[in-house]
């Protein structure tokens, strides 16, 4: 008999819960794992300084976040998507198709991508050409396109140490990978003339893909996990070089030895000035359709773009965000509700 009572009260509890499911008190944000730490810091500061509860922040990747964001409107969908790349035309179109008509884009800063070895590793000074020459699937040797034969850095460039090539690169689901391909591999391909040779052999489109294709003989290793995994791999392999986000490196400088690119050491200052070549913008996409229904959403979007938060000297910059010199544009976009895609 008591069993029946438990069952009945359980179902009653469920029924009561389901009826209260309409409203939502907390803002929900999901997306890029690069933006994730900044979003948590801003969320915490928002709760510290206002009467609103801290937003709920999820990672999952830029693409996954935008997909959830564009799934529709209403309390079941997220309010903000964070992204380490601009939203694509197709994604925005799917947003509009699903009734998410009013999207505000905020550029909140930049992130650098650094190459670093463990503390026991040698000093490297790299250029995109060197990296492309060491990691590309196909390179030019004596005027001929061949599968990459290099096994040590000294073969790539005599100025580099005679260490085995072992580079840990973020896997293809990471936004970091896209920037690595575009700003390092493609750039190195272009400068070294490999691009032209590939284009002559296989055509323009195939050349673009072949330029960023990494060798698959185990010298370039895809890391599908997060930077902590890359750190562990670099720690255990004295020849290993890992590809990290700048903020991760800034938090682990006692364990990593960073390699300058084109002679520029990555710092918040050198990325901000554009001197350090490998960087990318970070975005928030805010659902203005939710401004009236989700309490605090308008305030949080404005708060995130404040100079005191995302500007130089703010908590996000302290953590490793490279502040956007045009932060005022983001502030204005929130204030004026600047909707993407015309209207």
């Amino acid at each position, binding site marked *: 008999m008591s069993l029946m009572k438990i*069952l009945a009260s359980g179902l009653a*509890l469920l029924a009561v*819960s389901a009826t209260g499911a309409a409203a939502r008190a907390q803002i929900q944000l999901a997306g890029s794992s690069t933006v994730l730490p900044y979003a948590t810091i801003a969320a*915490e500061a928002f709760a510290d*300084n206002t009467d609103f509860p801290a937003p*709920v*922040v999820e990672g999952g990747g830029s693409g996954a976040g935008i997909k959830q964001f564009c799934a529709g409107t209403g309390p*079941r969908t997220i309010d903000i998507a964070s992204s380490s790349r601009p939203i694509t035309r197709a994604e925005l179109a799917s947003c509009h198709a699903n009734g998410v008509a009013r999207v505000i884009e905020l550029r909140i800063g930049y992130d650098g991508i650094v190459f670093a070895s463990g503390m026991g590793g040698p000093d490297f000074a790299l250029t995109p050409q060197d990296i492309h020459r060491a990691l590309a699937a196909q390179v030019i040797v004596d005027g001929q396109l061949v599968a990459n034969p290099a096994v040590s850095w000294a073969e790539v460039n005599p100025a580099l140490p005679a260490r085995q090539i072992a580079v840990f690169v973020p896997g293809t689901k990471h936004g970091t990978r896209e920037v690595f391909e575009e700003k390092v591999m493609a750039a190195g391909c272009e400068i070294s003339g490999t691009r032209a040779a590939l284009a002559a052999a296989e055509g323009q489109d195939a050349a673009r893909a072949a330029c960023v294709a990494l060798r698959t003989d185990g010298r370039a290793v895809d890391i599908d996990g997060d930077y902590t995994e890359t750190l562990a791999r670099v720690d255990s392999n004295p020849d290993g070089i890992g590809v990290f986000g700048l903020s991760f490196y800034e938090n682990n400088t006692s364990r990593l030895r960073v390699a300058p690119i084109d002679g520029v050491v990555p710092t918040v200052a050198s990325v901000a000035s554009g001197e350090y070549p490998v960087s990318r913008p970070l975005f928030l996409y805010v659902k203005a359709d939710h401004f009236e229904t989700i309490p605090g959403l308008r305030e949080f979007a404005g708060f995130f773009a404040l100079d005191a938060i995302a500007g130089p000297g703010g908590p996000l910059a302290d953590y490793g965000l490279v502040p956007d010199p045009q932060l005022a544009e983001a502030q204005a976009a929130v204030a004026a509700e600047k909707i993407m895609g015309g209207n």
Partner: protein
Amino acid sequence: MSDPAMPAARARRSLLKTDPGTSRRNAAERRFRAYGAAAVVVAMAALAALMFTVFRDGASAFVQARATIPVVIAADVVDPDGNRDPAEMAGVLTMSYGRLLDQALTREIERRNIQVEGLTQRDITGFLSAQARADLRRAVLADPALVGQEIEWRMMTSSRVDGMLKGRVTRDTAARDAKTSVAQYDLAMALRDQGVVRAGFNWRFITAPDGSDSRPESAGLGVAILGSLYMMLIVLVLALPIGVAASIWLEEFAPKNRLTDVIEVNISNLAAVPSIVFGILGLAAFINFVGLPRSAPIVGGLVLTLMTLPTIIIATRAALKAVPPSIRDAALGVGASRMQTVFHHVLPLAMPGILTGTILGLAQALGETAPLMLIGMVAFVSTYPSAPPQGLLDPASALPVQIYNWTQRADPAFFERASGAIIVLLAFLLAMNLIAIWLRRKFERRW
């Protein structure tokens, strides 16, 4: 029997001498025992190594360095208009309170006459936790009478300074670390020697909500423990009655036919389905179809209920089967109905087995992360959920999720926190298993 060779062959053997066949057999037996013992040794060694590393890395999470210094709540900073109106004072952000704390620390260093070479403003600002500013602001807004006074304020230090007192950050690593410096290390040691900074037990680690990536020192398990508790409550309230009812019907009432065979096979199959599949189901069924909110313990609880049900049904059926048929026959024989037989005699005798199975199922559900990922519970949640039933719909996290989140964060202090959280999770699992053993011992009957 009539074979004449047999007695002759037997006659050659002696009971006192072991023949080659017997000694081979004995050797095989000894080897087998040695293999068994070796397997146990390997398993215990692996467990010991795991425990050792977890406790070595995580024990320090329960200790936290705190500084106690007098802080002047300067009126011109926190209440520029001078009206002592909390609504107006709320316009002053935590960054301004940070300046008050920096000034207080600088004064304290001068007062105690501590000389540290190369100490910069950055070392001072980075010495105290950012949480301290938020706490001070909250205290002042709650009690505007504090404005203009000097108060003795106890606050957490930053994670780097905390690491210095625990030995995680040494003078060498501080020199290489961009987030700290040798001067900050020397300052921390000087203040420790003077008793200003002290390490003590860290209740916040168990009760406080999660902290952001820049505040590892303030990160706690409060929301995660509440979230896990809510989910276990839902699993218990739903899975136990449904599981027991299903098992009783299958075991005591169901006819033996094709249909029940199919059901049985499916229950066994469900028990082997990877947990992530239940997460996908939860997203489709409970969030997209029913419309329950994301990140809510109720969805997590429902998903884990589905995952735990087969385990409970299998355990309950085994417990019911173990009750001897003579009990049922005797009850039916004295005129009890079949329902009376089940509820008055079979079920009470099977209860210890059912409860053990349920608790082990709950313990399994407590450690699950994968199904929670898709329903938005793998998230940064720093607000406590309210009391049930409303709290079941508020965003919450869960213990294994918190561990997963912390291992992904860049600041090395989170590694210590993650190991500390593993210790807490293990303590919960151990407690649940002990309860299961205790129930079995107390109520078990043998026939």
